[in-house]
C-alpha cells in the first residue's frame, strides 16, 4: 500500500499525485514508469514518472482521466492509499552528451516531457520546449517548463493561447529559421509523435519518442506492449519506453492502442455511473 501525500488538480481532466514510495523514489530516473492498481480487483496500468524526490521518498504521477482506472484513481484523496505501486520500470532516457535539444510535449505527455527538460537543463543543455494543447484551459506545467527552458512555446488547436496550430508547425518554423538541435524528444499522442518524427527525419535530427502501449506486468513477461521498431519486435516495458522515432512503426502502434477501446469506454461509463450514484 502506498499513501497519497499530495493531490493537485492541474486542469479538468489532469491530476497530479505525490505517492509515498521510498525505494522507487531513490532509483527513479527520467523516462521510467510505474505500474499501479487502485484496488484489490483493479487493472494494472502503467504511468510515467513525472518527478521524484529521493529525500522525501515520494514519486509524482500526472494522469489524464481517460478510463475506469484513472477515474477511480482521481476519486482517491490525500492520505488514501494505492493498492499496488511498482517500479521504476523501463530504461531511463539517455540524456548524455547533448548541447541543444528540442523537447516537445503534447497534452498530458508534457508530464513526461517535463522531467526530461528539467534533467537536461540541470546538465547545462540548451532546451527549447514546445508544448501543445487543444485549448488554453488544458495547459499544464507552464511555470515549470519556463523555468527549465531557454525557449518556451505553446501551440493550441483553437488558437486560444500561444500559436494556433500544432507543435509540428512551431518546430518546423524554428527549424526553417535555422535552429539546430542535437536531438528532439517528442512525448505525447502517438499521432503527434509520428508527425514530429516524419518532420525531423527530413532534417535528419535524431528523435526519441516515449511509447505508452497497453501493458500488464511491465517486466517483459506478457509481450502485450510489443512494437515494431526498425522491423524488429521490441517490448516497450523492458526495451523502452524510449525508442528512435524514425524507426517506430507508428501506424501499427496506433491500431494496437485501440485493441480494447469498446471495453474501455463501457467500463468508464459504468465507473462514472457508480461514482455518480455515490455522490447523490
Amino acid at each position, binding site marked *: 500500500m502506498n499513501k497519497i501525500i499530495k493531490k493537485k488538480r492541474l486542469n479538468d481532466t489532469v491530476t497530479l499525485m505525490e505517492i509515498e514510495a521510498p*525505494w*522507487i523514489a531513490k*532509483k527513479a530516473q527520467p523516462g521510467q514508469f510505474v505500474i499501479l*492498481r487502485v484496488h484489490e*480487483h*483493479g*487493472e*494494472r496500468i502503467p504511468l510515467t514518472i513525472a518527478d521524484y524526490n529521493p529525500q522525501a521518498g515520494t514519486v509524482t504521477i500526472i494522469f489524464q482521466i481517460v478510463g*475506469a*482506472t484513472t477515474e477511480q484513481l482521481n476519486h482517491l484523496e490525500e492520505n488514501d492509499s494505492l*493498492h*499496488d*505501486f*511498482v*517500479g*521504476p*520500470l523501463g530504461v531511463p532516457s539517455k540524456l548524455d552528451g547533448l548541447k541543444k535539444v528540442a523537447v516537445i510535449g503534447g497534452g498530458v505527455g508534457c508530464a513526461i516531457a517535463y522531467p526530461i527538460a528539467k534533467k537536461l537543463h540541470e546538465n547545462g543543455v540548451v532546451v527549447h520546449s514546445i508544448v501543445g494543447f487543444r485549448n488554453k484551459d488544458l495547459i499544464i506545467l507552464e511555470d515549470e517548463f519556463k523555468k527549465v527552458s531557454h525557449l518556451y512555446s505553446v501551440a493550441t488547436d483553437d488558437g486560444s493561447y500561444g500559436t494556433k496550430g500544432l507543435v509540428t508547425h512551431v518546430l518546423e518554423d524554428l527549424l526553417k529559421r535555422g535552429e539546430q538541435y542535437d536531438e528532439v524528444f517528442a512525448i505525447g499522442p502517438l499521432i503527434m509523435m509520428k508527425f514530429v518524427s516524419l518532420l525531423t527525419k527530413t532534417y535528419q535530427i535524431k528523435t526519441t519518442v516515449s511509447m505508452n502501449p497497453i501493458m*500488464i*506486468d511491465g*517486466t*517483459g*513477461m*506478457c*509481450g*502485450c506492449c*510489443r*512494437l*515494431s521498431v526498425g522491423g524488429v*519486435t521490441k517490448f516497450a516495458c*523492458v526495451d523502452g519506453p524510449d525508442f528512435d522515432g524514425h524507426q517506430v*512503426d507508428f501506424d*501499427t502502434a496506433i*491500431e*494496437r492502442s*485501440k*485493441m*480494447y477501446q469498446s*471495453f*474501455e469506454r463501457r*467500463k468508464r461509463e459504468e465507473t462514472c455511473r457508480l461514482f455518480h450514484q455515490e455522490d447523490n
Partner: protein
Amino acid sequence: MANMNLKRNPMPTQDPNVRNHNFSEVALGYTKIQALDEASRCLHCKNQPCVSGCPVQIDIPSFIEKIKEEKFEEAYQVIAKSSSLPSVCGRVCPQETQCEAKCVRGIRGESVGIGRLERFVADLHHQKETEETMNVPFNGHKVAIIGSGPSGLACAGDLAKQGYAVTIFEALHLAGGVLVYGIPEFRLPKKIVQKEIDTLKKYGVDIQTNVVIGKTLSIDELMNNQGYEAIFIATGAGLPRFMNIPGENLNGVYSANEFLTRMNLMKSYELDSETPIQRAKKVAVVGGGNVAMDAARSAKRLGAEEVYIVYRRSLEELPARKEEVEHAKEEGIIFKLLSNPIEIIGNDQNFVKGMKCVEMELGEMDASGRRKPVVKEDSEFFLDVDCIIMAIGTSPNPLIKSTTEGLKTQPWGGIVIDEETGATSRPGIFAGGDAVTGAATVILAMGAGKLAAKSIDQYIKNK
C-alpha cells in the same frame, strides 16, 4: 494380497460439456474408498522403480502403504519430507513420464495412480490444517529469494523451517509465480496455491510483492545494504517467444503468457473484471505443451465456439501431459497436428481474420531426438480464426543478468550453476528452476529450490 485389477481407478471429473463453460476444477479427486482401492494396487516392489522416476525422490511405496493403513496424515508427512508442494504437484506433475512411467503395474495394464493418491492425501491434510503459527527460533541469518514461483516457495519453506529469516521478493502484486499467473484455475485452484503460501507465512516467511529485483532494488543492494547473506534467484522463464512471422503484431494475437495472465492473475473472465480480454469466436493456439492446452481450454471456457491446437509435429510428440491432452479433446478442442503457421492475416481494422498454415511431415531425427517436421509441398491452407495465441515457449528474463555484475549466463539467457549445489558464479548467490533450465516443470523447479536451500544452509554455516 494386492488388488490385481489391470485398470486404475478413474479420476472423477466434471462432465466435459459442463466444465468447458466454467472455471471450476476439472478433476474432482478420489474419494476415500477409491484411494484405498487404488493404494491396494501397489505391489511394494523392493527396488522401488517409481522412486527413481521422481525428480525429488518421494518415498512413494511408504506413503501408499500409509494410505492402505488409513493413516492419511502420516502418508502426507512421508511426502512432505521430499516435496514442498504436494497438493500442487499431485495436480500438475507429468506423472506418466516420471514415477508412473516406472511403475511395474504399467507393464501389463495401467500403473498405480500415484499422482492421484498424492493429491488425495495432500487435500485431506489441508482440510484439517490448523491456524497456529509454527515457532522456529531465528538462527540469526537472513536469506533473500527472488521470485515466488514453485522454486522460490520450496527454497523458502526449507530454509524457514531451519530458522532462517527468509524474504521473498515478487515482481507482481500476488505471490505464486506461474502457479497464479500461468496455470488456470480449472487445473490448479488458486485457493490451493494460497494455502501453500499461507503455510510458509506461518513459518515466518516474509513476502514482499511489487518489488522488481534489478529495478526497485539490486541483488548487490540486498547483500551489501540489507544484510542478506545469501540469495536464491528463482525468477523463472517469463519472456514469451514469438514466431517472427508476418502479422504477429495484429490485434488479436496474444502470447500465451499475456492471455493466461489476463485470465488467471487478472480474472478477466469474470464479468465485473476491469482487465479486458478479447472474447473471440474462433481461436488458434500455436504449440503443443501444457501451456498451449491451458490456453486452448481457457479460450473455450471464455466462450469461443471453435478452438484449435496448431502443432507442427504429430500426436506422439505433443509435449503436454497426457491427461491434459485427453481433457482438451473431451472438451471439444480441435487438434490440427502436423501444421505450422506461416502468416497471420488481418482485416482493415488491423484485427486478425485468419492464419495461413502449411502441412508438415516428419523427417529425420533432429538434435532433440524427435523426428524433424518438414514442410509438405503445396500444402498451404487457411484457418478461419479471429484470435491467435502463441504458446511456443519462453526464455529467462534478462533483468537480473543485466543488473548483477559477474553473474555468468548461457548464451540463451539461462543462469550458469554448479549442478551439485545450485551455486552461481558469484559467491552467496544461488539459482534454480526455469531461470536456469529454461521452461520446465513445477516439480523440477521445486527440486531445484530444495537443493538450493540445502546448499545455502551449508554455505552460511561454513562462512
